[in-house]
């Protein structure tokens, strides 16, 4: 029930389905048209032409408001969508410009020192050498730790009890 009502309300913005107005509203509209016909005829004036009658019959303040609201909602949605598109576009554009600027900044410049490439020996991939290297690195880290424990020094207590 509830999801259906939401769905119908949403669809009403796109004019897919008209909202069903309550019986009370339709009765009120009928009464208005009837009253209009009666009041006009009682004055003795010439009868209202068909055009006015049809306008009165079709007139409903609620449906007018509804159509305005629908149009407003559609315009708002379109505007929001365009806004999002605009901001995304500007962001993408600026980031592209930055990347190209960075790329231009990262172009290599000549350095005074000659870079000597690391040429591995036949032992570079030797598993014993790699294992040794790993063990050395682990031990080096452990040798960097502090062996002194400062959390377990004896508590300072008051032993000077005198009266």
């Amino acid at each position, binding site marked *: 029930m509830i999801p259906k009502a939401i769905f119908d309300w949403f669809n009403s913005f796109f004019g897919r389905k008209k909202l069903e107005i309550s019986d009370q509203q339709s009765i009120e509209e009928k009464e208005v048209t009837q009253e209009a016909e009666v009041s006009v005829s009682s004055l003795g004036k010439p009868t209202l032409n068909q055009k006015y009658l049809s306008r009165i019959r079709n007139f409903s303040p609620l449906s007018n408001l509804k159509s305005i609201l629908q149009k407003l909602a559609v315009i708002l949605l379109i505007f929001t969508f365009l806004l999002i598109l605009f901001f995304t576009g500007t962001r993408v554009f600026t980031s592209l410009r930055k990347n190209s600027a960075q790329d231009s900044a990262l172009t290599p410049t000549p350095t005074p020192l000659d870079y000597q490439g*690391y*040429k*591995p*020996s*036949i*032992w*570079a991939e030797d598993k*014993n*050498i790699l294992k*040794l*290297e790993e*063990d*050395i*690195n682990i*031990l*080096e880290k*452990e*040798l*960097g730790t502090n*062996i*002194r*424990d400062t*959390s*377990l*020094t*004896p*508590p300072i*207590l*008051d*032993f000077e*009890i*005198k*009266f």
Partner: protein
Amino acid sequence: MKNQKKFIFLIFLIISFLSIIFPRKAYSQENDFEKLYQEYLTTFDEYRKTHSDYSFKKAQYLRFKTLKSQEEAFNATLTMLQKRDDLVIAFSKVLKEKLKISSEVGVPKNEPLNARIDQEVGWFNEHKEKLTSAASLENLVKDSNEAKLRFAKIQVLSYDLLATISEAKIIVLNKRTREILDRVKNKFEEIKSQDNVEDKFSTYKLQIIDRWIFESENRLIRGEEKLINAQSLIATFASKQTGDNALSLYNQSQTVLGESQLFFKEAISSLKEVIREIKIAE
């Protein structure tokens, strides 16, 4: 297919069961230490509170000298002394647990230290019970002085224990450094005996590597000498009677152990250079 799935599920169950059971042991050891340490801190807070109450009641008694103030001072002192004994017992338990989780300390050093801790805990438990039989403030003062002398032993014991743990760590690091040095030397011999002329290192490169190994060995030997010095210092803990002396000896031993550690670190750095030289072609 169904049987296969059941089998895989069974294997998964067994593995997860085992993975829950086995790590629990290591976690529970650390957990026990943390728990005891928290208890020690809580007892310390309680001691502080009872001590401030004792100070207040003592001041009142010394000022008014009434029977009531005397009684209150007596009760406050008794509570404080009992809490002090609790604190010493809690601290001893923490020391014992610390020794237990320090796997580097071997059994020959572990057992005497544990025995001493148990002895002190036993003494303070008895002392705490003895306090309840005190009849006057003078009795409490006398009991407190007994605890003071005994606490000096706890201080010496604690510094001895901490120094032993540090020493054990350095001994393990020394062994590992020595083992790595031996492996590097063996590998270097293998490289030197390389038959292929194209892959063989030049004499110059071999000399560089040799010098690094020599440097590393020198550093290691110096580190081991420092370790021996530290060990001889730690062995004199038994002769220390007071906490202040024990603290100064502890500081000395830590300094020497730190120097030893530094030498081992330099030895490892030299070995790192050896590996780097071996990995780079000429």
